[in-house]
Structure formats: structure tokens, C-alpha cells
């Protein structure tokens, strides 16, 4: 029945029935098929959380690392072997909470990776505590009196940090999501796709219906090359804009800045250390 190039093997999916993660998985697999890549060239990097389990349900290389640490790993993989396609994907708690510092600084590097965030406004795997994007007043077993922090605004921060591709999508709209993913994956440089994702078990506030009622798609009136305009849109919180907020093409990518790639594209593992040069180095210290 399932025959997609990126379909995972026969593995028990640990997500709840009805979870928005399924839709993201399907859209991603479709997007990957469209961009003409084979599973052997793809590396999915994830952290820990419900979203972070996604690579297990696909056919690909993967590095399912620590909570919050997908971006440094993804950046390093891309740098060690720029020929690989690298996607860093996790939940918003992972990327913006535990991993917030890497989010800030990975953007500054602009590695050619795609950063996909399943934003369900809650900590799913650990059973329903507030996440950085949870809305004020959201009540949980830990935030008993409701969330008392301003929600984290990943898009505004990405604009502030000059990310070269910034988009928001909704898990409920397959085609729009898939298309945005294709654009993000084909963008050269760091690309952020924050995906609004209903968590049917722990987020009874931000449901499929809530997202439909509180979002709209950016249209041509939005100039996605205008950073200030993108910022203004990113500040809108009801309804939330969906689509491409900002894109800058042609920026140098992180891996390109290393001298070793100036003359050769060879990944690190194919290069041999020049032992004579090491010897010369030691000898120079005489």
C-alpha cells in the first residue's frame, strides 16, 4: 500500500491517533519526493519529544540526538559533508526552549539546512506542560494558574537574526505545507518552517479548529524580501499569518566559508591527512 520513497519500515508509530504530527510526516515525505533526493543522501537530525521521533517513521539516515541539540549536530554534519541534505526537525520545546541558544546562533551561521519545528504550543512527550510558545493563561499541571510568560515568537526572532528563509505553516493544510517545505528545502541557507500542529492529547485550546479560526495566508500584498514588513507580520498574533514571511537568496552559507572548501568539494571523510606536512610542522618547532 505504502510505496513512497521515504516511507518508513514496519514500525509502531508512537503518536496519538489524530495527532497533527501524522500530517507533517506525510507532507514532508511528499516534499522530499518532489525535490529529487534519495534517502541515502538525506540526514534527518532531531532532538527529543513527540515531534523528534519523526525520523524513525521515515526511510533516511538519522541522528536522533539530545533534547534541544539538533541544530549544532545538523550544522556540523552539513559542514563535514556538504553533499548531504540535512534537515533538523523537532518540537518547539526542543528548538526554542532547551535549544534556544542554538536557534539564535545557528541562524547567524546560515548553514544550508532546513529547520522544521512542530509547534503544538505544549510539551507533548512529557505530558502537557507549557512550552515556550504556549499562550498566556494556558493551564497545565505545572502552570496551575496559567502561563505567566509572554509566548516566544520564533518568526520575529528569526527576522531579527536575519534568517534567510522564514515561514509558518499549518499541519492541517497538506498542500500548502508541502509546498512550503519544498521551498524551504530547496532554499540555499538556513530555512525555518514553524508548523502549527494540533496536539489532541494535551492542548485542548489550540485545536485544528482553533488554528483554522485563528490563521490566514499571506498574499501578494506581503513583500517577502522586506525584513521590516516580515517583522510586522510576525508580530500579528490573531489571526496568525501563514506562508512565507521572508526570504533572502544568494547569501553565503556557513560551510562555504571554510577554507578547505575553497578548492575542493570533497567531504572531510574523503580527505587524507598530509602526514609529511605534520612532520614538517613538528620539525619547524626545532
Amino acid at each position, binding site marked *: 500500500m505504502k510505496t513512497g520513497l521515504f516511507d518508513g519500515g514496519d514500525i509502531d508509530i508512537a503518536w496519538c491517533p489524530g495527532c497533527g504530527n501524522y500530517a507533517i510526516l506525510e507532507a514532508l515525505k511528499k516534499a522530499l519526493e518532489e525535490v529529487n533526493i534519495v534517502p541515502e543522501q538525506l540526514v534527518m537530525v532531531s532532538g527529543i519529544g513527540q515531534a523528534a521521533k519523526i525520523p524513525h517513521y521515515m526511510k533516511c539516515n538519522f*541522528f536522533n540526538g539530545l533534547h534541544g541539540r539538533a541544530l549544532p549536530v545538523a550544522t556540523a554534519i552539513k559542514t563535514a559533508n556538504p553533499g548531504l541534505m540535512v534537515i533538523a526537525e523537532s518540537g518547539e520545546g526542543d528548538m526554542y526552549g532547551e535549544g534556544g541558544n542554538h536557534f539564535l546562533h545557528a541562524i547567524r551561521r546560515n548553514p544550508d539546512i532546513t529547520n522544521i519545528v512542530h509547534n503544538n504550543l505544549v510539551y507533548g512527550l512529557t505530558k502537557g506542560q507549557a512550552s515556550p510558545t504556549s499562550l498566556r493563561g494556558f493551564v497545565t499541571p505545572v502552570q496551575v494558574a496559567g502561563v505567566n510568560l509572554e509566548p516566544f515568537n520564533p518568526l520575529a526572532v528569526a527576522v531579527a537574526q536575519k534568517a534567510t528563509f522564514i515561514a509558518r505553516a499549518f499541519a492541517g493544510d497538506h498542500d500548502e505545507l508541502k509546498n512550503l517545505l519544498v521551498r524551504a528545502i530547496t532554499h540555499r541557507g538556513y530555512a525555518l518552517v514553524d508548523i502549527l500542529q494540533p496536539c489532541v492529547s494535551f492542548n485542548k485550546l489550540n485545536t485544528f479548529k482553533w488554528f483554522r479560526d485563528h490563521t490566514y495566508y499571506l498574499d501578494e500584498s506581503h513583500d517577502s524580501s522586506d525584513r521590516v514588513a516580515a517583522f510586522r507580520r510576525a508580530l500579528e498574533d490573531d489571526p496568525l499569518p501563514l506562508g512565507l514571511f521572508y526570504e533572502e537568496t544568494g547569501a553565503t552559507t556557513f560551510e562555504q566559508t571554510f577554507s578547505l572548501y575553497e578548492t575542493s568539494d570533497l567531504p572531510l571523510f574523503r580527505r587524507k591527512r598530509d602526514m609529511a606536512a605534520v612532520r614538517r610542522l613538528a620539525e619547524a618547532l626545532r
Partner: protein
Amino acid sequence: MSAGKVRSGNDLSLLLCGEAGRGIQSVESVTTGLLKSAGFHVFSWKEFMSRVRGGSNSTTIRVASHSVEAPLGRVDLLFPFDAAALRHVRHRVTSDTILFADEDIIDTVQSPDGPVTAVVPFRKTAVELGNAVYANMVASGFIAGLFDVDFTLIGARVESLFTGPRAGLAAVNHEAARQGYDLARKIVDDGLFRSTIIPDSVVHDRAFISGAEAVGIGALAGGCNFVSSYPMSPSTAVLVFMAEKAREFECVVEQAEDEISAVNMAIGAWYAGARAMVTTSGGGFALMEEAMGLAGMIESPLVIHLAQRPGPATGLPTRTEQGDLQLALYSGHGEFPRILLAPATAREAIELSRRAFHMADRYQVPVFILTDQYLIDSYYTAIPPEIDGSPPISNIVETERDYRRYRLTPDGVSPRGIPGWGAGLVMVDSDEHDEEGHITENHQVRTAMVDKRMAKYAAMERDVLQPSLVGSEEYHTLVVSWGSTGPVVREALERLGRPGVSQLHFSQVFPLHVNTAHYLEKARRIILVEGNATSQFGRLLRAETGYRATDRILKYDGLPFTVEELERRLAALDGGEVEP
């Protein structure tokens, strides 16, 4: 110039001291190079404050006719560049010390049993040449003159220092060195000082190298091509060395936003086929602990250069200690194998840093290179490393279609594939996983995977380095040392010359060699010498072998042991009872 005893010998200790940022480092670098070029054995170590300017720092340079690799406490020739510096090192000055300084500094010396003093117009000469900064070069020339180094060597050194945009300064510096040189020749001619140190022909073929450079060269020899780190004294020196060499050796060097990022980058790089290292110090390493568990779980090779400094917390940022052995040994949650190497000298730092990469790659475990500020910032006249012609052999395999990253094997080591090479997929997971790399909660698989990981200890056994016994095999007392403390213990014992007292030195501190217990059981008395407050290695030895140190000589004031201090403390133990 006041009268006094004349010091000479075949082993002299020079002390340079002054404010930070005022050039004692440049005097050190020029003179040690010259002295080494002249065929002397040179060893230098530094102690300095955690500040950029001001304060009082010092460098002790030992010059000898024979190999020397340990600090002397004694000061034969003292060069204070300001009065505060003189106060700073006062406790090391005796009536045998000869003090060379400008007049105003000499004037601050009051004590009648103080050092022999010789007014040398370093600054005055410099000012006459147009700028007080030339005083450093005057002093460098002076020291060269004291040791009768051929002046052409100095000339060449000055040329090499002042090239490119700074070439215009060559002439005046040359002249400064010349004037300093002449000042010294006069002192020698006056008979106040004469060096009787004999050049040794072997020195020419030796390297003059710092611990930091040694770690870097060893890493390059081990195939290191990825360094991700966050600056932290004293480990930064290795980061800087690697950055300098990055272009020539096709190495990625990245300063991460924090240590957590650095170590996750390194693990990611190994996953993608690189040979990666982090260089850090205690507090920075503490932040890497979670990722140690990651390396342990996904069986990633990883090389960690951990340069120790006194803790806890920020502690004494620029000082030395051997206080993070346990931190490294028990780092990371859960249980997984690891290797800890602790070089004793620069030469060994090259060998062991290289070895760290091979061990990490062979066993797919984290390997530590455990150094400290003392080793990192010291310069050694070292037998050059043998770096053979073939590049490091990597154990990476090209994957087959049904590749399983965690295939169960008898020795616990599964062939390691990387993404993008071969027909297989490489799946790694920080959760417990099955052979493919997928999450599992199966209790049998869990047990099998723990056993697989721990099985590597047995496999590693053949690669564990023996401790080295220095001295007679017929001992009743063993003085145990590890890491950078090795040479100073060795020299102190040589001086003491007690029959039946030998040294057992460990350059691999974990896992321990199987013979360890045999060595210990033969000793009636075991004396642990460590640069920490709790005898961490002694504790490890006892946990592993049951043998307990009868005595401990510990130091945790931020400074390395000196030969004399250790000799004295060892001698003091002679009176003590030998516990059963």
C-alpha cells in the same frame, strides 16, 4: 652593583617577572628559542593572573646541560621588570639569587640577606633607543649574552620576528638586543656570573614545544579535521593552535556559542565522517556532560581535550590543578565505556593525542586527553615525535543495503558506517535502540545493548598503556604519579636517591592496566603525589585494586609542584610511620 656570590652550574633557573601585557612573554619566547638554538636544554613554565594588563606574572626558564622537564623552585637569575613583580616572587629569592634590574627596582631591595643585585639599565637603554618597549629586546639580548649565545643567532631571530609591515623595526630591535648583549658580556667579564652550562649536541634534533602545541600536533597526526569549542583558559591555546593550522591541514575550526553546542557539533561531525575534537576546561566540560552520555549511547567516537585548572566553578582560571580526574571519569549519566589519557610531557602529549583519535575511532568511545594549565603553558625540549608516512587508518566502512549500525558483535564494536557512503542507512538514537538504531523499550534488547557497550572494556584491554616503573624493581615504597606530575616526581626521587623507593607513573589513568595491582601489592608503602585536595587518583586506585595509599602529598594552591618542594615533602615522610 653589589658584591655577592657568583652562581654558575650546569642547571640554572631564570625567573622573568612583570606585569601582564608588558612583554615578559616576548622575552621568554625570544630567549628560550635562542638558548635552545645554542644547544642548551631548556624548560619553561608560567604562572599568571587572570587579567589582561597589570598584576604580576612570571615565567621560570630552566637551562641545563642535560634534559630537564620539571620546575625548580630555586631562582638563580632573576629579572623583575617592575617593583611589584619583585615583591610577587620575593619568597623564591635567596641570597644565592642574582637579581638583574633597572636601578629603581634594585632600590626596592632592602633585606641585607637578599639577593646579589646587578643594576642593568634595560629601560634606560631602551628609552635612549627611542622607546621603552625595546627594553624587552635589551633583556633578551642580555640573557643571550649571559649564556654566551653566538650573537648571529640573535640577529637571525630578530630578522625573523620583524618582517612584513613590521620590518622597519628590525634595525632598532637588533640594536637593542646588541646593547643588551654587550651589557651582559660586561657582567660576565666582571666575573659576577659565568654560565658553565655545556651545549648538548642532541638538542639540535629536539623540538622546543609547548604542551598546547603538542596536543595540537598530536591531534593533527591523529587525523583531527574538525574542532568545535568555546574559549576557556587554559584550553584555548589548543583551539588557537588548531585555528592557525586549519587552512594548511584542511580542518574545520569553529567557535561555538557555548560548550553544549561545541560538543554536539563534534559528535555530529564524527557521525558524518570527520575526526573531531573539543578542547575545554572544567566548567566548560561540566556543560558537556549530557553529551558524554550521547556519545556513550550512540557509540560515537569523541576526543575531549580537558585542560584542568583549579575549581570549583570559576576557581583560579589561569592556574593549574589535577582536580578533574573524577569529573571526566564519571561524566555523563548512565553507564558506558571511556578512555582517559594523561600525558606527562609535551612529547607524550603528541603521542597520546594522536592515540586518542585512534582509540576513539577503534572502540567508538569518548577518549579524554587530560592535561592541565601547567603542562599546556610549559615549553619542553622534547625528542621529536615519530610521525610516520601513512595517514590515520579510519575504521569507517562503506555500508551495505541492510546495514545495521548497532550489529551485536563479540567485542561490542559494530562496524561504523556514515551517511552518504554506501547503500545503507545510518541510524543513531540517544534512546535505547535495537541493532538498526530504532528506539526500543524491549528489556532483552536493552540488556544486550548495555552488555555490548560494556564489552568494549574487555576488548580495549590489549590497548591499555602500562604504568611506567621508574627506579628499581626491588622497591618497598612506590611513589605514584599521573599526568603532568610525572617528571617532577621523577626528578625529586632522583635527587633523594633513596634505595627501595621507586616511582609508578600512569599516563593512562582509565582503564587501568591489569598489572597495576601487581605493582602495588609489592609495595609496603604507597605514596600518592597529586595536584588536588582529595587524592582522586588514589581513590580510583583503591576502587580498582583495593590498595590504599599510605601517604598522600597533595597540592591545590594553583601552582605546580617544584622539584625542591617535592623532595622536601618526600623526605619529611621518611620520619612517618609506614601504615600496614
